[in-house]
């Protein structure tokens, strides 16, 4: 620009110059003319000045043209960029519209999409998407997958629907076929009736029994049917289930329930009340209301466990509580002979309590029961108190499982047993085996306390050649007396919040020495074994705290496990003999060092002591005809 301006200025200067020169020439010529001089030479030189002027004129025109061209070029550039700008603006508005549309779409359908991983699991053959995909693209991909998935599911649904239709059709045709048999069967039955009578077959009896069953509430019905089928399949006579109660009661209740429902419908929105409540609801106290609303179903199931030839049976009474939506079981000890069995009643409850770990039955394991009871102004604790007070038993989770009632236990674990057959079978087996081992244990305890056992002839007596000691006494003691004994065996016992213990004290005597055995029997026997704490009175009192030999003795007795002995052995007796022989060995080995010898070596052992701990030969080894006590 500057150069063109300069150029212009130059041009102006040049023109001005030329004009000046021309005027000068004109003036000169005029003067010369006026003076009458010859101007011809001057005129030709002045004419030459016109040539230069013309040249300059052309120059000017050229530069104007060039300027105009430049201007045009710049203008077209501006036009182009303006056009582009317009385009962009249009594009922006279009995209904005698109975005709004997408948003609207999203809001309208609001699909719940699965994550990428889940889709890639569902469609394993789709190519793995690139990790650098934008979130939008990812979303699109997911949508695509979702569409695919839905299509697949839709086709599946259609297939299932058609198969359902087919099955229905099939079902219908089969049913028609069966109903077509009915008249023929009826005539057959009628025609063979005389034959039945003649043969004295009573086909109706079982059916009649079944009619009561029909009135059982659903959970108990399931339980009963399962038990019955199990019993028939296994051909097992060691347990038996019966329905107790009258048809009429159940019918009555059903009627009343129906009535209550009807009345509730008519006075909808009113307070929930029990069926009997409607006449005298105003004067009935809260307690009455509770008692009445907490009423078991009139029918209950009685299960008798125990073989037919045994005089002792375990009786389980299983009731269903409509309000609590659960079943409870109470165990009873049932003895055909008239012996006095004090304390035995307690252990049958323990047996059920410890059937499964952490299932003590001290709360109602039904989800949401607290909320439902609120409507009756009750809490689940009240209900538990009521059940316990009236001796209706406990709502164990395993029992609900047997009845196919879903449970929520203390650790908030939901469980709904569907394999009822296996579950029932397992529970029955478990109860039965526990029952048998408890029965054995109580017999042993009775044998010890009444001393009506012959220690010499018992098969648990491992070393029949000699029993130098005698059991002089065995009595029940309180737990405090037991804990008065200070032994590591007690101190190191795991925290047992729910297990109760019964304790006994047995006294074994040999000569001037006396051994006291404090025996602790846990309520969850046989999951835990009885513990023995020993103390020997002979030349002072020796316990596991002050004498390592006694501690080893205790260890030897307490480390006995059921797997170490024959299935038919009585555990407590084996422990007793172990302890008695250890006592003998202790006296005989200790006696060998005494200055005045009271106890001679009678047992066959090789060395009295071994190892730095001076371990005594408590262990009895029998190989063929060779037997010995060893360390």
């Amino acid at each position, binding site marked *: 620009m500057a150069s063109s301006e300069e150029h212009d200025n130059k041009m102006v200067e040049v023109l001005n110059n030329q004009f000046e020169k021309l005027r000068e020439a004109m003036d000169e010529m005029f003067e010369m003319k006026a003076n009458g001089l010859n101007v011809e030479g001057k005129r030709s030189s002045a004419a030459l000045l016109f040539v230069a002027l013309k040249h300059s004129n052309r120059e000017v025109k050229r530069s104007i043209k060039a300027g105009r061209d430049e201007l045009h070029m710049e203008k077209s550039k501006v036009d182009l960029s303006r056009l582009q700008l317009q385009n962009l603006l249009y594009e922006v508005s279009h995209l904005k519209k698109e975005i709004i549309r997408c948003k609207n779409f999203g809001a309208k359908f609001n699909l719940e999409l699965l994550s990428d991983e889940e889709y890639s699991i569902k469609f394993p053959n789709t190519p793995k998407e690139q990790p650098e995909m934008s979130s939008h693209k990812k979303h699109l991909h997911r949508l695509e997958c979702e569409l695919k998935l839905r299509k697949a599911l839709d086709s599946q649904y259609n297939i299932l629907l058609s198969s359902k239709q087919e099955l229905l059709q099939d079902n219908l045709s089969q049913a028609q076929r069966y109903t077509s048999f009915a008249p023929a069967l009826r005539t057959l039955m009628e025609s063979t009736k005389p034959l039945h009578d003649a043969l004295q077959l009573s086909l109706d009896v079982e059916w009649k029994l079944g009619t009561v069953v029909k009135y059982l509430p659903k959970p108990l019905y399931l339980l009963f049917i399962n038990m019955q089928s199990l019993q028939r399949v296994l051909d097992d006579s060691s347990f038996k289930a019966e329905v107790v109660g009258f048809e009429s009661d159940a019918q009555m209740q059903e009627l009343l329930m129906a009535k209550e429902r009807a009345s509730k419908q008519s006075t909808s929105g009113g307070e929930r009340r029990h069926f009997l409540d409607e006449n005298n609801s105003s004067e009935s106290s809260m307690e009455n209301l509770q008692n009445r609303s907490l009423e078991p179903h009139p029918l209950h199931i009685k299960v008798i466990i125990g073989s037919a030839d045994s005089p002792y049976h375990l009786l389980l009474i299983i009731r269903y509580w409509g309000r609590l939506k659960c079943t409870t079981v109470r165990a009873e000890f049932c003895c055909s002979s008239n012996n006095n069995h004090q304390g035995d009643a307690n252990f049958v409850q323990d047996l059920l309590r410890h059937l499964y770990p952490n299932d003590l039955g001290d709360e109602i394991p039904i989800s949401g029961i607290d909320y439902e009871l609120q409507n009756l102004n009750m809490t689940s604790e009240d209900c538990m108190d009521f059940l316990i007070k009236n001796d209706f038993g406990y709502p164990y989770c395993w029992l609900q499982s047997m009845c196919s009632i879903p449970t929520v236990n203390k650790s908030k674990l939901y469980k709904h047993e569907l394999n009822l057959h296996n579950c029932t079978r397992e529970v029955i087996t478990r109860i039965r*085996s526990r029952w048998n081992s408890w029965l054995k244990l109580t017999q042993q305890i009775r044998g010890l306390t009444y001393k009506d056992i012959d220690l010499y002839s018992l098969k648990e007596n491992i070393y029949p050649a000699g029993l130098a000691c005698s059991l002089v006494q065995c009595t029940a003691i309180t737990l405090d007396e037991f804990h008065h004994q200070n032994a590591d065996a007690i101190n*190191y016992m795991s925290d047992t919040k729910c297990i109760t213990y019964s304790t006994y004290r047995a006294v074994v005597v040999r000569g001037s020495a006396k051994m006291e055995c404090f025996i602790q029997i846990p309520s969850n026997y*046989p999951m*835990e074994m009885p513990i023995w704490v020993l103390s020997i009175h002979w030349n002072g009192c020796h316990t596991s705290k002050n004498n390592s030999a006694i*501690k080893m003795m205790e260890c030897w007795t*307490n480390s006995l496990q*059921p797997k170490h002995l024959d299935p038919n052995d009585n555990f407590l007796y084996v422990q007793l003999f172990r302890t008695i022989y250890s006592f003998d060995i202790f006296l005989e080995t200790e006696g060998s060092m005494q200055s005045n010898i009271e106890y001679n070596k009678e047992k066959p052992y090789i060395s009295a002591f071994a190892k730095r701990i001076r371990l005594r030969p408590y262990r009895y080894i029998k190989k063929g005809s060779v037997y010995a006590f060893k360390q």
Partner: protein
Amino acid sequence: MKEKDLKRAYNNVLSQTISTSQRFLFCGNLLGDIFILDLKELDKGTEEPPGKLKLSAQGSDVDINCLAFHRDYLIVGAIGLIYGLQWNEEEQLLSTKRAWEVKIPMQVDAVEVPDVNSMWLHSDTDTLYAGCGDGVIYQISLEDGRIQREFRGHTDYVHCVVGNANGCIYSGAEDGTVRFWNDKEKEQTAMLEPHKNSQLLRPDWGKWIGAVAVNDDWLICGGGPRPAIWHLGSLECTRTLDFPGRVHVCDFVDDCVLLGGEHNHVQFYTLNGALQSNIPVEHTACYSSVWQTTPFKFMSISGFSNKLHILKDFRFLDSKIDLYGNVEGKDADTDESEEEAIFCGDAL
């Protein structure tokens, strides 16, 4: 009673040893478990509780009667068998594979496999002296595992073997004698019979010698008889110590005498026989003590209980460390499976 409770109630730790690096303590019990304690835990101050122990199970049929440590091997004395386990200090890992085994030969008239009751390691000559249940002390070369020599003379099983640097070996046994041996002589060089000393005899407790300890001039021994200090040169009993229980542990510690055994205390006496400190312990009986003065001072006493007793100044009880129940990675309750196992054992 559950198995873990049983183990805790009747844990009997017979032996302890400290690694060559003096950084780890090994304890072996009669249930075949070796506990490994990082000694750093003891040194790190009293506020924070010590970390958990490592456990290396040798199998329930292995009674760990004694332990020793040589170079990077832990030497285990079991029944009729001495074996070495490699200890990897870097990874703090005790090899489960036995690096070598030495079988104790059965005597012709023996009916039982002899226990290895006590081991004394002479590091300078790579020799191990093992006092065994057959009353023989075996001298074992650790270079090739060969039994170099048998020291015969005891008429009952050996409780304790110790020695000193100039090749003398001293052993105490159930037969009531302490015998002195020398590398160069076949027969014993001298013998003590503390039960023949009426001052030492405790008639009801027998004549056995449970523990022997020596320094350059003096020897302590005790067991059924009262513990006493004897002069090595003259074989005279110079001082009787009034430890009230049976003796299973004795040692010269600094200028004191440590005594432990079947008593609810361990006691320190001066060489003049005066009681210096009386430390209560939970063990029904103490069976082992190990101690060191560098890099830091500590003593650990173990016995028939589930606890190690730690003394830092050899005068007062400093802390007790649980063994079972304080083991890395094993504390998770396995109640359920255990219970099932018991239940299955019950006859249906």
